[in-house]
């Protein structure tokens, strides 16, 4: 009996807690609100923040963070939201409320901070310097099939640029196939290398087109360069199979035996039919002679 009472009590407590949490507001303590964002607004952090935003936030808050996702939610770009300090936003993302999940359990602190940075930049692009042009070079290894991208400043000094996100692709029939990681950052020498996977099918001679891109970068304008290499497995052509006479061939590629057989049968049968129709005229003619 006592046990039952305990269970009932716990249930009532749980329900009341649930009811309470429905109407709860975020109580952000002063020291939490004062927490400073340890991350600088750097392109690398922004890229990370954007990736996490796209993965975890877009579904509810929308592509433009205006709260118009699959469900109606808080706009993250209006003034009311942006007025809050980084610390308050950090607390809210971490603890969650109602439909907003507690991301503190899913994301690292740095990741949450980078999302906050990204949200700040969304409404104030001037927080980051305008993107610059770069020089993108592509070199290929010969012993192992590797691609090296070199990013240099576009001015005459041609200084190597580090920490630039470069994307590597192989051109396919209808689009680009990504190779390497989602993000490949250049080192201090401005270079980043990716090894080509085995057994990439090329054209009939085995040529493949390698594409290196800088895209959607906060610091640099889009840039792309490509190279053709005979690194692929040659594409086997079945043209000959389709061009020879076969059952699966086109209309004018019927097998000879079928042509002979079918047309032979048709010729014999229709010869008899034509002969019989000719006989009808002979019958008519024979009748005419009789009348005369």
């Amino acid at each position, binding site marked *: 009996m006592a046990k039952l009472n305990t269970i009932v009590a716990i249930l009532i407590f749980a329900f009341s807690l649930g009811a309470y949490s429905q109407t709860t507001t975020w109580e952000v303590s002063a020291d939490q609100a004062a927490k400073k964002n340890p991350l600088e607004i750097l392109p690398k952090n922004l890229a990370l923040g954007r990736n996490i935003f796209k993965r975890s936030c877009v579904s509810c808050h929308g592509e433009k963070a205006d709260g118009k996702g699959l469900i109606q939610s808080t706009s993250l770009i209006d003034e009311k939201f942006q007025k809050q300090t980084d610390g308050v936003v950090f607390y809210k993302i971490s603890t969650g409320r109602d439909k907003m999940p507690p991301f503190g359990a899913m994301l690292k602190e740095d990741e949450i901070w980078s999302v906050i940075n990204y949200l700040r930049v969304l409404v104030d692009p001037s927080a980051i310097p305008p993107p610059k042009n770069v020089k993108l070079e592509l070199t290929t290894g010969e012993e192992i099939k590797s691609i090296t991208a070199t990013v240099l400043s576009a001015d005459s000094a041609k200084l190597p640029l580090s920490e630039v996100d470069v994307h590597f692709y192989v051109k396919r029939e209808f689009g680009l196939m990504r190779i390497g990681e989602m993000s490949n950052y250049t080192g201090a020498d401005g270079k980043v290398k990716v090894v080509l996977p085995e057994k990439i099918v090329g054209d009939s001679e085995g040529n493949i087109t390698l594409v290196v891109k800088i895209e959607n970068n906060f610091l640099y304008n889009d840039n792309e360069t490509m190279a053709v290499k005979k690194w692929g497995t040659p594409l086997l052509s079945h043209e000959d199979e389709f061009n020879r006479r076969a059952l699966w*061939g086109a209309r004018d590629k019927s097998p000879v035996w079928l042509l002979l057989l079918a047309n032979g049968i048709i010729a014999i*049968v*229709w010869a008899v*039919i034509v002969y019989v*129709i000719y006989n009808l005229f*002979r*019958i008519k003619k*024979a009748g005419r002679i009789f009348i005369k």
Partner: protein
Amino acid sequence: MTDLYRKEIEIKKEQFQDLVSDLNSPLNRTGSSFKIWIGFLLLLIAMAGFMYVRQLQQGLGTTDMRDIASWGLYISDFVFLIAVSLVGSLITAILKLSNVKWVTPLTRISEIIAVAALIAALLIIVVDMGRPDRLWHIFVHGRLQSPIVWDILVVNTYLVISILLLYIPLIPDLALLRKTMGHKPKWQQKMYKILSLGWQGTEEQLRIMNLSLTALMVIIIPVALSIHTVTSWLFASTLRPGWDSTIFGPYFVSGAFMVGAATVIVTMYVIMTNYNFKAYITDKHFDLMGKLLVLTSLVYLYFNLNEFMVPAYKMKSGESAHILGLLVGEYSVLFWSVQILGMILPILLMIIKPFRKPKPLMIISVVVIIGAFLKRFLIVTPTLLHPFLPVQNYPESYHHYNPTFSEIMITVGSFAGIMLIISLFIKLFPIIPVYETAHEKGFPNEIINNS
């Protein structure tokens, strides 16, 4: 002596006149019941036509054919009609060439059934097309490697031969009609005149006619076998459970002879009772046609045993759903009804002589025909409902096929069309060959030609 001879000739002439007026009597009797019958058939055809116009406007969505069951009642009807048409070759060619004399009064019946069924079959295949306006593509873009092209070729060839085989024995009868039907409308007289080709019954004309008939009777046998074999290949040359069979050709042909014989029995019964042809279509004819139906049914039963026993014994994983669906599943009631009521029971009954009397035999034949039609449906549709490649994300209704009112009406319309062609033919031409009957009754050519 000469007087006696002359008298004998006079008697013979009179007898021949009686025979002619007897066999031509359907042409002269057009009662109100016939008009009602024609009106009824035209009404059915008009309803089918209306449904077809609706189908043209709204597309094949008016049928219950969907992605999975893309062949339904129309294709079943097509296979059924092709099967029925085979009887023309069975009676007029196979039995005639074997010197079976008693089939003479049945030759024209079977041949007009063949022609009418073929015309309906060619129409129903167009009805089954979603875009009939592209029919000509099969002639312009068709590949000789495709069984569809063979089917088109062989069905049309068979139709031409059947029309010739219907027409050529009719020529002497047309010559008689030309002489005796002076009271008929002008167009009808003109038709008899043109079609009779100035037939005088000379030795030369007879020789050419018999030569032509023999040539046609020989050539129609392989063509008839190939028409239904090719139709079966439309199924058997695909990789489908239930169709992937090497005996599909003979299986179809034997089934065709069975339903064809049953169709002839029903038609000859109707003609015999309606036009009082008891003297020409006798109990003996029914008895022998009953025996023929038993024979063809037994052959078909044997093929059925092979067709279902072998796959059911193996129960290959891909085919088991289809086999079980027929034997114990969704279609089991229909399947066993068709096999038992439409085949085994008729065989058992028809072995007993009293059941080969006209009326019971006619009733049995009607059951056989219904069974044969449903059998075609069982061949076509359940297979499609069990594709080898799994299908996903289809509405539940796509996994079943229940013909719509529109499809049923159009199919009924095809039968009405066949009956209309036969009914009108009976009113325009003697349905029992006059010349051949007279010839077999021993009337000399002079009497036949000079009456």
